[in-house]
């Protein structure tokens, strides 16, 4: 019998937070999005349940852990947090009108904001495998 695979089903080219954001380096900037787990918690597999997303203005300075936006599903409004301090250099405006992108492709087309970090030192976050372990422990 083959040993069970330890390979993560989530992209290993980025880091993850306990509040279910992902952070991916993009040149001198970072892209921030939310994970498939977070999306499923909000809409339970029904992409039509996501109804509104409010993203920050370009140029806004964000502290680590600050709310950068809000997302509304049919029955809940949740805050979006940045694990990285920096300046918003771009937002994915397509998301605000096409929330289904988040369900269809949370890892690539579903990025939310691009931030120019204040520092090259990044806070401690989880890799994909550690994030999956975190989710597995959360279930128990």
């Amino acid at each position, binding site marked *: 019998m083959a040993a069970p695979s330890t390979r993560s089903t989530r992209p290993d080219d980025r880091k993850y937070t306990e509040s279910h954001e992902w952070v991916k380096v993009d040149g001198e900037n970072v892209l921030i999005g939310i994970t498939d787990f977070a999306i499923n*918690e909000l*809409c339970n597999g029904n992409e039509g349940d996501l109804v509104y997303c409010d993203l920050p203005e370009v140029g806004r300075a964000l502290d680590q852990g600050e709310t950068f936006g809000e997302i509304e599903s*049919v029955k*809940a409004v*949740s805050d979006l947090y940045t694990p990285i301090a920096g300046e918003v250099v771009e937002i994915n405006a397509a998301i605000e009108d096409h929330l289904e992108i988040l369900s269809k492709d949370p890892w690539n087309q579903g990025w939310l904001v691009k931030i120019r970090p204040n520092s090259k030192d990044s806070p401690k976050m989880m890799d994909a495998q550690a994030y999956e372990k975190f989710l597995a422990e959360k279930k128990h």
Partner: protein
Amino acid sequence: MESWRLVVTWGADPSFNMGLDEALLEAAEAPPTLRLYSWSPDTLSLGYFQSLADVPGHDRARALVRRITGGGAIHHVRELTFSIATSLDHPIYRGPVAESYARVHAAIAEALRGAGVEATPRGTTPLDSDRAGTGMCFHTSTPLDLAWAGRKGVGSAQRRKHGRVVHHGSIKLGDSVLETGVATLPGRGTNPGPAEIGTLLTEAMAKHFDLAFERAVPDAVERGRARQLGVRYIDPAFVRSR
């Protein structure tokens, strides 16, 4: 058995009502809280992202406020309003949003049974109370919403922030000029007030989730934060911001 606070604030003003719910959402050190309340004067609350222009009847309410929770507008008159504030790690709220609604709605249905109403989740069938163009929460329904007699009878919405949740709910006890055709308790032959339904809700939650409620008032810090935070919710710039 878990200890919860029961906070009762009848007839408070809209600024305090919304400020206190945000203060309870912030209060990470406090025990889980069930709050029962009503409004003075009667108030129209807009959903967090809702545009005032989407609620054509808004000028028929005596006061306007914007909620911290999403969804449609509610005319807070002849109703029991409640909020639940706790951690998202609490067994009631752990997991998908939809599952947390199913748990809370099961307790509410039990409370309503005590008032002589058999409330069930709407499911896939649209309701007779669904109406386009009013912007009102009770005129829009989802499969999770509790209904009886083919009409929506409980409005609800959650705000999730920093690992905590505040869950708003409204149970209609009588008619409102802005919410015609919705399910109300007197329409089923009973005539309870908010205090009576509040007691039924408290007892049902205690039984359903094995909770012990202790009547309490918000502490001085929470009251101070409520007044401070509440200013924003009635500020015309915020109410008309969308």
